[in-house]
């Protein structure tokens, strides 16, 4: 073997490793669907408040979160089969999303039901956990935009403290648009460019 052949082999190795990274940008669909589901959940919640059906608010969230969970499971399995490989970023992402999902259940449902704190603090804690999720995904994907989105979520959580508890959930909508749906659309265009 000579130096040129060795460099050629090193290039081949690098190219194969780069090709495995294509998979991760296909996960934009999870971001988009969850962003839309939560916005609809917030809209549903305020609609129920408007018509004074307060006892149905929990059901509203069970329905929308349930849709998100079912989608994640079904699409996650299909996504894995289509792509044909389990990458380590994908495995890490799946675990982080599951862990944050459990945290969402606790701070969004269980702890308020146990009257640990008032419902007015739910949006603050949800934003805090979402910031952790998005920032960590930014680290896994090595994507600074997502890390900054995580910081935006944390700043949103702090900002909510100064807003009346009746309106805190509304702040989640612009946070979702900027810190969840926008990166989903960017990731989607990256995935489509790679697929071409």
């Amino acid at each position, binding site marked *: *073997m*000579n*130096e040129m*052949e*060795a*460099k050629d*082999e*090193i290039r*081949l*190795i690098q190219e*194969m*490793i780069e*090709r*495995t*990274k294509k998979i991760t940008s296909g996960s934009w669909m999870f971001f988009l669907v969850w962003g839309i589901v939560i916005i609809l959940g917030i809209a549903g919640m305020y609609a129920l408040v408007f018509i004074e059906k307060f006892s149905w608010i929990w059901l509203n969230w069970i329905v929308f979160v349930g849709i998100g969970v079912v989608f994640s499971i079904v699409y996650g399995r299909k996504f894995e*089969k289509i*792509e*044909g*490989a*389990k*990458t*380590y970023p994908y*495995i890490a992402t799946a675990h982080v999303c599951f862990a944050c999902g459990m945290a969402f259940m606790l701070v969004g449902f269980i702890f308020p039901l146990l009257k640990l704190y008032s419902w007015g603090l739910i949006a603050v804690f949800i934003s805090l956990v979402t910031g952790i999720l998005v920032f960590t995904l930014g680290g896994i994907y090595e994507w600074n935009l997502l890390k900054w989105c995580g910081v935006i979520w944390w700043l949103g959580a702090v900002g909510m403290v100064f807003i009346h508890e009746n309106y805190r959930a509304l702040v989640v909508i612009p946070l979702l648009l900027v810190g969840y749906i926008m990166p989903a659309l960017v990731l989607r265009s990256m995935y489509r460019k790679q697929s071409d």
Partner: protein
Amino acid sequence: MQPEKFGQLDPVIHSRIRLAVLSILISVKEASFNYLKETIGTTDGNLSASISKLEEAGYISIKKSFKGKKPLTTCRISEKGRNAFSAYLKALETYVSFKK
């Protein structure tokens, strides 16, 4: 030229397709036969022969199952394969860094 400065290239890995297979498997937990074939851009026959050779050497493990009614072959790199790939990379570096 001083031949003793060059690393020993593992003949099992020293093939374009087998090197490509290990490069992919080092980056993922597991990969299907079709994924390897599409990513590398090779034929069924060439890939099949390559993964058989890697399996014989103990560098990868192969699991055969079914996806519905279609057979599914999934490959994973072994610890021996990781060490062999790492040694191969070090040997390659001696060819690249050698100054005449």
